[in-house]
Structures are given as C-alpha cells and as structure tokens.
C-alpha cells in the first residue's frame, strides 16, 4: 500500500505550546508579515479560491466538459427550439427549461465547490496518543498501530481502518480518497464530472444535480423531438426539419445518448438513498452478505422515508477543516516546517495518469465505458456475454466482487495505470448488465449495439466511479 509509508512518531518532536514572553516574539513578528489562513497550509491535494471560500480537487477532471455540454445544449435549446415551440405550443416551455437549467447549474457548482466532508488530519499529539494506547505491556513506546479496530455498531461488527496518511482510525463510512489525499466522511465516490469527491456534505447537492439534470435532459429531448416532428409535418420530412434547425440535431444526439445514463444514474442513487448506502459500500458489497454471514446495513433506519430524509434532509453538517480560520502565530511556523517534511505520495503519478488515461482510453475504444459509473452501466453497451433476457438475472454481487476489488485497490492507490485499464474493461462488460436493485423499477434499457454511445453519453454524466483512476 503506497500510502502506508508509516512514519514513526518521535516523542521528542512533539510540539508543546511553550509560552514565549512578549519581547522575544518581536523577531518572529517581523518574519510573518500577515496572519496566514488555514487553507494555505492544508495538507490535502485541494485547490482553494476566493481566499478559501471555494474548494476543489486538484485535478478538475472533466468539469469544464460537463459545464460546456450543459451550456451548449441548453443554449442551442433556447436559441433554436424555444422560439418555434413558443409560437406553436406554449410559452411555458422556455420557463420550465430555464428553471431546470438554473437548478442544474447551481447544484453543479455547489457539488463541485463544497467541502465534501473532509476530515482534518490528526494532530501529532493525537497520533502519538493512538500509538501509545496500543501498547499494553506497560512500556510507553510508540509502535505502528494495528491496521484495523473493531467496533459494534447497532449490533453489527464494523472494522475501522487506520489511515496512515491522516494518522487516525477512520470513522465508520469514511474513506481516504487518493486523488484528493483526504479522508472524506461518508465517502460516496470521487466524481471527475464534477471535479470533486462526493461525501457527506455535498451528497444532497450531487443527488439534486443528477435528478434535475435527468429532468432537463429528458425535457430538452422531448421538446426537440416535438419540434422536429412539428416541422416535419405535412410531408416535408425529417431531413427538411433538420436542415431548418441544425442546432436541434446536435441537441438530439447529445440528449439521446445522455438521457439513458443520467436517468440510470439517478435511479441508482435513488436506490442508494432509500437504503442509506454509499456507492463505495454498494460496490464493495459491505452489507450484502456475500461473505455468508448475516450482515445488514447498520446505518439504515429500516424505513425508506426515514432513510431518504436522513440522507437528504438532515441538518447540514459543518465543514471540519475551517479553511478561512487564521493560524495561530506560533503554529504557522511549525506547520510550514511540517509541510516540507510531508512525504511525496508516490500514488500521485498513478492518479494523474488515471485522469489522462480515462480520456485517452475513452478516445481509443468507444465500446468501453471509461467512467464506468454505476448507473451509466445501464446505457446501451453491447454486452457480448449476456442476452437481454439474462440482464436482470445477473447478480449484483458478481459485479461487486469485480468492482469492489478494483475500487478498493484504486482508493488505496495500489493499482498501477495498466492495471486500471485492464480491470476497467473487465468491469465494463459486467457493468453493462448490472441493474441496481429491485427497488429501482425502471425497465432495463435496451442493449442495442450503439457503439457510439460510450463516448457521447459520457458527456452528460453526472457521476462516475472515477476513483477508478
């Protein structure tokens, strides 16, 4: 495990707040010209804008592409289709379209620019304390703690893992994102389409984003179809209609290929919300009982309504990283020194390659769903080893196994780049037949041989398992 390069804590190096008499502090005051804010010394791989108000992942992923596609499609809709439809149908159409468009943009920005629930790293004192506790022979020595610790949550045994980067036992449902190099609470997945992790604090924004985007896509698709149908009336033909309104052709193509994936994704996340699961847990099959034990999700309230409310309507938790807080004067010098000592995580290269690799392999093979998202898997991918009849019967644990191993591996930054692409192709073939569970009653999309769908549909994706890289 690359991020397992454990650094033994030196007890002598622990900083203790020693009081400094005022007159000795003058030298230090001359050096630190202005008080620094905490975001400036933040150890994770995030970027901050507007003096710490806006936080994004280091790599923006394909957020510009997502934004571009939404703006272009909506722009074409308002320019080409709305005038005609207002004249021939009703003027409600641009109003509804406008409301949906604004909703989509606002929730997209909130998903991208909000702290997903990053846990600040343990202070050196805390980290030393954890290690000290483990030793029970009576000697106070500092040893690397065991990897896992078991706790009982609602009569269910849950293993808490020790995070070597953040130097703490991760709370339940927390996972370390190798792309952002942070532990994120209630980690769902890292989404390159929004350029950020999706976790406890921004899951509701993300969910609203994909639901409103599916409405917007479906709405535009419907309107464009109506528009072209109306134009083609009277024996004029579709070609004539397309020539008159070329923008509609572009919209039609984008929407046709996106609507399946976005709708599928929304459906999948609706299932996750209703059962109080995260994508991470679903992929790994943590609570599906595949190990043969009688395991149930200990976080579920056993009631769909309460689950939905607790995920979407619970009080908004605060940001724990206090980006805009000021560093105490004596600590800013210490943290500056500590920054230099932080080891360079070697999985950085894997992650950087990952995103590029995503786009490269996408260009190379349209058959492969590169973002291979849980929901996107339902799009029209040709799945050679299954027939439409068998689609529903393909058991999800099978997928979980294949994806789970991959997903976990990528989260830990273990897999190399080539490993990613191999696993991805295997996963994608299986993913095509994955249907998110019985709670989702939508009909399975036709597995029609649309080879172009892979690259196009990706464009409007709300989320994906991009932690694959």
């Amino acid at each position, binding site marked *: 495990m690359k991020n397992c390069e454990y650094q033994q804590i030196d007890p002598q190096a622990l900083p203790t707040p020693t009081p400094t008499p005022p007159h000795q502090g003058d030298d230090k005051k001359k050096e630190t010209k202005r008080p620094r804010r905490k975001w400036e010394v933040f150890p994770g791989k995030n970027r901050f804008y507007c003096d710490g108000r806006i936080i994004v992942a280091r790599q923006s992923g394909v957020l510009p592409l997502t934004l571009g596609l939404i703006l272009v499609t909506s722009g074409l809709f308002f320019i080409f289709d709305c005038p005609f439809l207002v004249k021939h149908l009703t003027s409600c159409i641009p109003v509804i379209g406008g409301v949906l468009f604004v909703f989509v943009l606002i929730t997209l920005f909130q998903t991208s620019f909000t702290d997903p629930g990053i846990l600040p790293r343990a202070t050196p004192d*805390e980290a030393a304390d954890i290690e000290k506790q483990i030793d029970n022979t009576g000697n106070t020595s500092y040893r690397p703690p065991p990897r896992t610790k078991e706790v009982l949550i609602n009569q269910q045994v849950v293993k808490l893992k020790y995070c070597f980067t953040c130097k703490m036992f991760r709370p339940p449902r927390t996972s370390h994102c190798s792309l952002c190099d942070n532990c994120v609470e209630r980690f769902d997945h890292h989404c390159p389409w929004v350029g950020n992790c999706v976790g406890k604090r921004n899951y509701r924004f993300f969910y609203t984003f994909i639901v409103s985007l599916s409405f917007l896509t479906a709405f535009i698709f419907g309107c464009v179809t109506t528009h072209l149908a109306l134009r083609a009336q009277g024996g004029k033909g579709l070609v004539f209609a397309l020539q008159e309104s070329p923008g509609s052709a572009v919209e039609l193509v984008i929407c046709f290929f996106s609507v399946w994936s976005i709708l599928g994704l929304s459906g999948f996340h609706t299932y996750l919300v209703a059962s109080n699961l995260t994508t991470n847990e679903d992929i790994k099959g943590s609570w599906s009982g595949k190990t043969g034990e009688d395991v149930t999700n200990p976080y579920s309230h056993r009631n769909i309504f309460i689950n939905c409310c607790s995920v979407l309507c619970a009080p908004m938790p605060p940001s724990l990283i206090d980006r805009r807080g000021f560093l105490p004067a004596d600590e800013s010098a210490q943290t500056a020194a500590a920054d230099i000592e932080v080891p360079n995580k070697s999985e950085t290269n894997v992650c950087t390659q990952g995103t590029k690799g995503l786009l490269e392999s996408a260009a190379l093979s349209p058959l492969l769903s590169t973002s291979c998202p849980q929901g996107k898997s339902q799009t029209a991918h040709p799945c050679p080893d299954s027939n439409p009849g068998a689609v529903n019967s393909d058991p999800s644990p099978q997928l979980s196994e294949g994806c789970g191993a991959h997903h976990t591996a990528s989260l830990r930054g273990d897999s190399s780049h080539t490993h990613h692409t191999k696993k991805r192709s295997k996963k994608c073939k299986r993913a095509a037949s994955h249907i998110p569970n019985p709670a989702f009653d939508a009909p399975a999309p036709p597995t029609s041989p649309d080879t172009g769908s892979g690259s196009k549909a990706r464009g409007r994706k709300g989320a994906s398992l991009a932690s694959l890289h």
Partner: protein
Amino acid sequence: MAETHSLQDMRQQAAVAAKVFIQRDYTNGTVCQFQTKFPSELETRIEKQQFEETVRTLNNLYAEAEKLGSQSYIEGCLACLTAYTVFLCMETHYEKVLKKIAKYIQEQNDKIYAPRGLLLTDPIERGLRVIEVTIFEDRSLTR
C-alpha cells in the same frame, strides 16, 4: 486556600504535563458521541462524576444538533426547493448548536476545569474526532 488558576494565567504560565484524548463512541452509528469512560490520567485531578457529566451533556448537545425531526425535514425541503442557496445566507441549525456547545465548553473551563489545572478543547477544533483534555502542571503541589 488553593489559588484558582484563571484560564489566561494557566495558558501563559503553566507547562503542559500531558494530554488526554476522549475518543468517539460509534455504538450508535455515525452520530457524534464521545466515550464517557473516565480516563485514568484524570483521576487525581477531577471527580469522575463531574467529568462524565460534562461529556454526557456534550453528547446530548451533539445529538440535538444532528436530530432528525420535523423541523430539520422542513428546513431540508425548503433548502432543496431553493437549490440550497439558503445555506449561503442562513445559519444552519447545526451551526447554531455548535455555538451553544462552544459557550458551554468555555463556561465549563472557566468554572470547573481551569481551577483544577485542566483545559478542554472544543472538539470542532479537532475535526469532531476527540475531546482533547490538556493537563497542566500542578504548581500547587510544589509548594
């Protein structure tokens, strides 16, 4: 008889003898609760009852912050309808309770812990992971 150390005096003059960390208690899930088990290092400094009372009150306050009730549902639905833009202008329920917690900890420190040479750090400053109790050197023992 015993001089009561004021919080300011303590921070400026006393040296830190040790730090005790009260970890989170996950038996009820991911809600923010801390273990009420009394750490042995504090045995000489404060009564078990008093300390457990403090932790229990904190636990209740955090439970109140995260409570799923009709009020939070209404707030959540309203926020959703406005595309969550209300979060930019309104103080959330959780933040209101956090302020209450900060005040409570300040009050506890002033009245109970500082006179005993202890200092509680607000868990929010440690990412809600631990309650850090700083034990200062007890000068009164050297007299």
